[in-house]
């Protein structure tokens, strides 16, 4: 039952609806339902946030280490280096996301031109 398991036009949309829409709006609707009933600083919520953060971080690391498409032909060291520079620029600028993105992109784009790899 993978994304391209069934050869019809509607299967990918059903897949997105169940694995995407249901999986996200479930939490949003539950949030509305629970309203203010949940203690915001409970230890259970800390654990839940940690798992969620770890999961998203794993996705991001895989996007950098095992990318699809054109990024796959960029050297691995350059991908990790550019992400690292972006992250440290973000920290050094007082947590400005714009600064992190600009620095990371400058390293990636600059090196691609300099090394002429693509």
């Amino acid at each position, binding site marked *: 039952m993978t994304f391209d398991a069934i050869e019809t036009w509607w299967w990918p949309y059903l897949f997105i609806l169940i694995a995407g829409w249901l999986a996200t709006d479930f939490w949003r609707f539950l949030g509305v339902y629970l309203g203010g009933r949940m203690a915001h600083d409970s230890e259970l919520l800390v654990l839940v946030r940690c798992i969620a953060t770890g999961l998203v971080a794993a996705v991001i690391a895989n996007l950098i280490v095992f990318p699809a498409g054109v990024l796959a032909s960029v050297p691995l060291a350059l991908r990790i280096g550019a992400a690292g520079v972006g992250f440290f620029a973000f920290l050094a600028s007082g947590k400005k*996301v714009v600064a992190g993105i600009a620095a990371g992109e400058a390293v990636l784009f600059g090196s691609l031109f300099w090394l002429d790899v693509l």
Partner: protein
Amino acid sequence: MNDPEATASVGSERRAWFLRGVRSAISVPGFILASAFVGFAGLARDAGLTLTQTVFMTGIVWALPAKVVLVGAILAGSSLPAAMFAVTLSSVRLGPMVVALVPEMREPKTRSWVLYALSHFVAVTSWVLAMERFRYVPRSMRTTYYAGLGSMLVLANMAVVGVVFLIAGRLPPAVSAALFFLTPLYFVTSLWGSARERAGQLAMILGLALGPVFHVAMPGFDLLASGLVAGFGAFAIHLLIKRRRAV
């Protein structure tokens, strides 16, 4: 009660606040989000999704981490239950975010379907913007304001995704590489910024390190395994530090 003039003036006030919500979407956080969606369009295209599937996913799922996980699961050839479980886990944060947002915009007479409908717009950017700007919005107009803000962000980014998807194939490779690199850069920075406690930042570092390891060690379950190990690991350290402080 049903004074037509009063109704008309409430109507025009609502329109004004809706438009103010729309306008607040056009802001620095809004542009950063759009740049991350530029990256997402490239990611989805490289994963083999069609234009309509990608635009549909943008509107129906909306939260970017959830979509990146979903595309990651599709790329990894995950089954429907595994993909759903991974996306569900990655979206837990939406629950507490909505729990925090709803009391800010609810009035005794607010109908609950309005809140359920508006909750679909909740994702990091609209949530941060709303929590920040609500203090300048009269309570009775906050649902209207959030409807303007949320719908503008969703529709604008559906358009961004559609346009980028169409032109991505015609760009020079270095430009597409730079565009597709926006998504990981956006998350590496904003994920750290959004962590509310040290434990969250520790979970992020562990997740970054474990993701590629589990990708090789247990393909198909790599996301779940990394999330659970990083989450429980960071939480355990968080408890240990807390206990040591208490002693």
